[in-house]
């Protein structure tokens, strides 16, 4: 045991010193809106629309989805930057771990989708990677950050919403990014799309009815009445504030899932 200690003491110090530095670097405050555009790259219309959709997403599915842009991560790899923020903010509901964080670092030219444990099953690394390179990056390359961020994140939002079987009223229609490798289509899997469509259909129906039920709740957002008694599924009456306001993380956990890239 003594030997073990001696051998590991110096590296231990190095590791600890590294961790300390890192934690000091990400001191952004808890977001007050679903879209926090520190780098100022998203135009007002897109920001307002995205904010509304993300709020609706949280109200209907409980998933907490934050879109963040910064000038730079301050020398940190974006993977580290995003997981530290996601952990600090505890996005997503406790136990459900349904948090999402999108980060774009403008000057570093890096982006990342950070996926909470509970969403990893369907918002896979592969899917995030596809959305990144098929939707996000082409816009970023043209310099249209606003539309890139808007459309790419809506892809993921749509995925979460349809998985939960809800329809988002504010969602514009869009072509969705396919989730399976096109080349690997074997006969055994041909039942899957049918099943999926059926699920979507039934899910869609359920969502449609849920929407009416939620109407008073959504309108209440304007007046500032907190807690409509459906707190169980919404994680507390944290939506009492102004329209588009983010109430804070609810204890979701992250394990490093997602994808990142540059442009």
């Amino acid at each position, binding site marked *: 045991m003594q030997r073990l200690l001696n051998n590991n003491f110096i590296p231990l110090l*190095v*590791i600890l010193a590294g*961790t300390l530095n890192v934690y000091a670097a990400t001191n952004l405050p808890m977001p007050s809106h679903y879209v926090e555009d520190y780098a100022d790259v998203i135009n007002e219309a897109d920001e307002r629309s995205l904010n509304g959709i993300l709020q609706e997403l949280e109200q209907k599915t409980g998933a907490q989805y934050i879109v963040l842009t910064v000038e730079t991560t301050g020398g940190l790899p974006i993977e580290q930057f995003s997981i530290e923020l996601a952990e600090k903010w505890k996005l997503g509901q406790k136990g459900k771990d349904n948090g999402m964080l999108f980060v774009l670092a403008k000057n570093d030219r890096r982006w990342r989708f950070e996926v909470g444990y509970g969403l990893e099953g369907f918002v*896979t690394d*592969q899917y995030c990677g596809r959305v990144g390179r098929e939707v996000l990056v082409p816009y970023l390359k043209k310099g249209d950050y606003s539309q890139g961020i808007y459309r790419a994140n809506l892809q993921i939002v749509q995925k979460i919403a349809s998985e939960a079987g809800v329809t988002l009223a504010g969602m514009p229609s869009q072509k969705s990014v396919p989730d399976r490798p096109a080349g690997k289509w074997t006969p055994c899997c041909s039942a899957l799309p049918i099943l999926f469509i059926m699920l979507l259909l039934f899910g869609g129906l359920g969502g449609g009815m849920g929407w009416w039920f939620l109407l008073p709740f959504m309108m209440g957002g304007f007046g500032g009445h907190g807690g409509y008694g459906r707190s169980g599924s919404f994680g507390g009456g944290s939506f009492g504030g102004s329209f588009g306001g983010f109430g804070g993380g609810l204890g979701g956990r*992250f394990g490093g899932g997602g994808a990142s890239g540059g442009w």
Partner: protein
Amino acid sequence: MKNYGKAWVVLIVILVVVLLAGLVIFKWYISGYNRAVSLEQAVEQAQADIESNLQRRMDLVPQLVETVKGYAAYEKGLFENIAKSREKYFQAGTTAGKLEANNELGGFLSRLLMLQEKYPDLKANESFRDLQNQLEGTENRINVARIRYNDAAKQLNTYNREFFGSFFCKRAGVEQVEYFEATEKAKTEVPKVEF
């Protein structure tokens, strides 16, 4: 008679005080002991998390190699090295050994991924890019799991060195654990490989 009664009162007070003190010490003992056990459990869970992510990565590797082989059949040396370090992973008995083999494999894998610069068809292949995303994802998860393991290990080892902590750890049979160092460079850094 009067004195006799007073003595009784004193005796009862002392008894109550002793009982209360005993209760407090008992509670303190239980919580100290439990702390040692739960810290050890956190470390074990973090270690299991590292291992499951490592395993997932190892499962992805053959798929990736198969895909690349279709485009770069004569990079045989690289495929062999990957197979060898994958073998090394499966032979490793400890998490530290597995991590080491994983790091070695990481070097070869980044060279494999670099092949896309040499073979543009490979770069355009959807399943190659999907696999690359998955591989990067697991590597990132391993890294996160490793950092969390070190945090848990630090807490356990600190407790184990404290005056009372070491006592409880000994009672619970909890020992110091080793740290897993980071060996791979920052993710943004693109490895420079000569062909």
